[in-house]
């Protein structure tokens, strides 16, 4: 699982300098991802510290949220209301390629780190503002958090069983992390444009846009006026079968995407009646007859244990799985073979984080342990 290397100059963005003035999750993980791509990232924390240091649970005294969101960075604590700290920070701005901030509306300007101020010093700076609802009114100043955006954006609407009205995904910070991913995509595109123009820009990256991107499929359906009824329990609406079905011991999750897979599925569950039913041979017909198919296949699947169906369906190259406990699955052979969990030795013990989301054959990427927060050492960018 371990992936550490002392060489900070690896990765496709090696040589890039990123100044991270963010706290909590969306901003910090955006900067962390840039660091994982090889950029040199300096996190500037306020004297009060990034609040995630004190968010439960802790590991050896430090919030695990902080550990997870701040890999591949160095850290310095500055009070930007003090002139010497601000001057030092501005000297970093002069060298930086990317500046990321997620202050509440108007605070960046008040602290003297608004875009116009920094762009006058460094016209090439790609300045990324991460917010909840974006810069336009009426909600430009409204506070946000993961669960707020889940509710507002419709994300929670599609979850749950048919009797539910709305249900939150209890996976804290999920929309924050999606926002970070969108921010990195935008920042790298802006860096490419800067190669042609020499000029940076001020990007607006709202959590709301990231939440809608996660809903791309449903947004497409909504725009075309063909939105399905949701929530639909475990059933999907693009292909069918696509859901959880109870077996003798536990549910199995099955997806049948093509008409050929449907034929193989029917063979695997030994159901010639379904195989020869012309009213179900095409996916469109199966999607329109979801309830009927479920009624027919549930007794069949319920007659044998999950291990049987995993075996039969995998032999037929059908998508099938059981719901895993994440703690156990993180040590699964598949996860280990692909280094999908990063394990980093640190002064807080062995820290585990989500693994690198991409692998590059030429510009190799690595994970580095998070920094000790609260340092006053005035670090400089490498090179």
């Amino acid at each position, binding site marked *: 699982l371990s992936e550490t290397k002392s060489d900070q100059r690896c990765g496709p963005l090696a040589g890039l300098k990123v100044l991270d003035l963010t706290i909590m999750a969306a901003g910090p993980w955006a900067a962390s991802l840039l660091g994982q791509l090889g950029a040199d990232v300096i996190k500037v924390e306020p004297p009060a510290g990034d609040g995630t240091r004190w968010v439960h649970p802790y590991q050896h005294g430090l919030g695990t949220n902080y550990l997870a969101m701040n890999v591949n960075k160095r850290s310095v604590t500055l009070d930007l209301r003090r002139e010497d700290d601000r001057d030092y920070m501005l000297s970093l701005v002069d060298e930086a390629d990317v500046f990321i901030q997620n202050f509440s509306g108007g605070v960046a300007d008040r602290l003297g780190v608004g875009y116009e101020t920094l762009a006058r010093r460094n016209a090439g700076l790609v300045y990324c503002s991460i917010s909840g609802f*974006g810069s336009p009114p009426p909600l430009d100043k409204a506070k946000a958090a993961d669960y707020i955006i889940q509710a507002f954006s419709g994300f929670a609407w599609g979850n*749950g069983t048919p009797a539910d009205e709305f249900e939150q995904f209890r996976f804290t910070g999920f929309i924050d992390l999606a926002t970070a991913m969108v921010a990195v995509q935008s920042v790298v595109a802006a860096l490419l444009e800067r190669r042609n123009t020499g000029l940076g820009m001020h990007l607006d990256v709202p959590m709301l846009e990231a939440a809608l991107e996660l809903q791309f499929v449903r947004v497409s359906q909504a725009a075309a006026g063909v939105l399905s009824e949701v929530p639909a329990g475990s059933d999907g609406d693009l292909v069918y079968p696509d859901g959880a079905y109870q077996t003798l011991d536990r549910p199995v999750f099955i997806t049948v995407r093509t008409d050929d897979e449907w034929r193989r599925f029917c063979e695997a569950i030994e159901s010639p009646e379904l195989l020869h039913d012309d009213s179900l041979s095409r996916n469109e017909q199966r999607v329109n007859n979801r309830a009927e198919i479920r009624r027919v296949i549930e007794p069949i699947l319920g007659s044998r244990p999950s291990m049987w169906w995993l075996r039969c369906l995998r032999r037929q190259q059908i998508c099938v799985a059981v719901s895993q406990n994440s703690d156990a699955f993180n040590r699964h052979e598949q996860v280990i073979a692909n280094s999908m969990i990063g394990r980093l030795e640190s002064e807080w013990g062995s820290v585990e984080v989500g693994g690198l989301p991409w692998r590059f054959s030429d510009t190799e990427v690595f994970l580095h342990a998070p920094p000790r927060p609260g340092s006053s050492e005035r670090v400089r960018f490498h090179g």
Partner: protein
Amino acid sequence: MGDLLASVLTGMRIVEWCSGIAGPLAGRRLRDFGATVTRLELPDEQDWLQAAGACLSPSVDSVVFEALNAGKQCVSMGTDWRNNKDLENELSSADIVITDKTREQVDAAGLRLLRSDVEAGVSPVIWVSVTPHGPRGPWARMPGSELTVEASTGYMGYIGIEPGASRLGNYVGEIGTGIFATQAALAAIYAKAERSAGGQWIDVSVMQSLLSMASIQVAAHADPDDFLGPRIRGEFYPPQRGWRCSDGQITFAFGGAVGKSGRPGWVNFVQEIGAGWMLEDERFDEFGLDTTGLGIRVEETREAYEDAFSSYTCDELVRLIREYGGSAARFQTLPEALNHPQVHKLGLVHDAANTGASVTRIPGIRVLGRPPQSDCAREGMTGKEGIEHD
């Protein structure tokens, strides 16, 4: 100042040899950044998404397929593609290839030499490989769907009561992988331009994406000092559906300020809504923030809040909570969200009624400002060199 970056990849040629959602989303976004995208269709391969879900009429592809693939060129390989090198020529002449084929499938298509050249950095092609479970390990050749990979990675434990009763309502693994694939392609282009690097092979997978996006939970479960907080306890919560008001549900939080000993926002809010008695209820002081949002004491105090909220509409409460320094939102359906003035202002979703295509722009690319031209470019950044290519 408009949205932009639409010409970042002008002149670049992307070749897509894949089906489904993740790879085509990456192709769609690279096209939105200005690249030309060509989809390859092989006679013995079918994109399952073409017939997946609703269509606008029986003779056209599905709405989701159209949304992902509108504006891309399509090249159909003839039945003798294995002999005439059409496929190899298309792929080897691309700047970026996006495929959902495994290395074995690529080799079996007669492309072993091209594949090894890309992996060795000899070929100039940037090759993005999108698989369900990653390139190595016992599941490397196993098919996987959004549903099955979410189940494998433990996501189902955070929705519904029992794993299996419900699923996440959106294709977050596929979409997340599409975003990571786009990032990776852009970063590889940057490296190629900045360091005169060659092409390279990039692996992304739905399983890896979902585990990366679970980083907060992964870290919380590694070696925690205590069993506290939603990051470690969310898996064991009942479903969270917010707080009922007179006309719907809201969710809200007051930062660290809940309880009479906290900052005044919450105190003034509960007095405003006629629930000053909450100040004498020690649970709020004791549990604080954990009584709101996705907090772990929500169920214990839900009834108290809902009693107080019952005579207010969602909009009234959201406005009050914001006024008193908290965060709040009404639970909306997706159509309600898309019709909200804030979403209109962002301009993310274009009016594409009855077309089913090109419904969203790239998220996160509204440009709020640019430096005055007179400030001139930074030293060493004047060039037109860079991402232009052959």
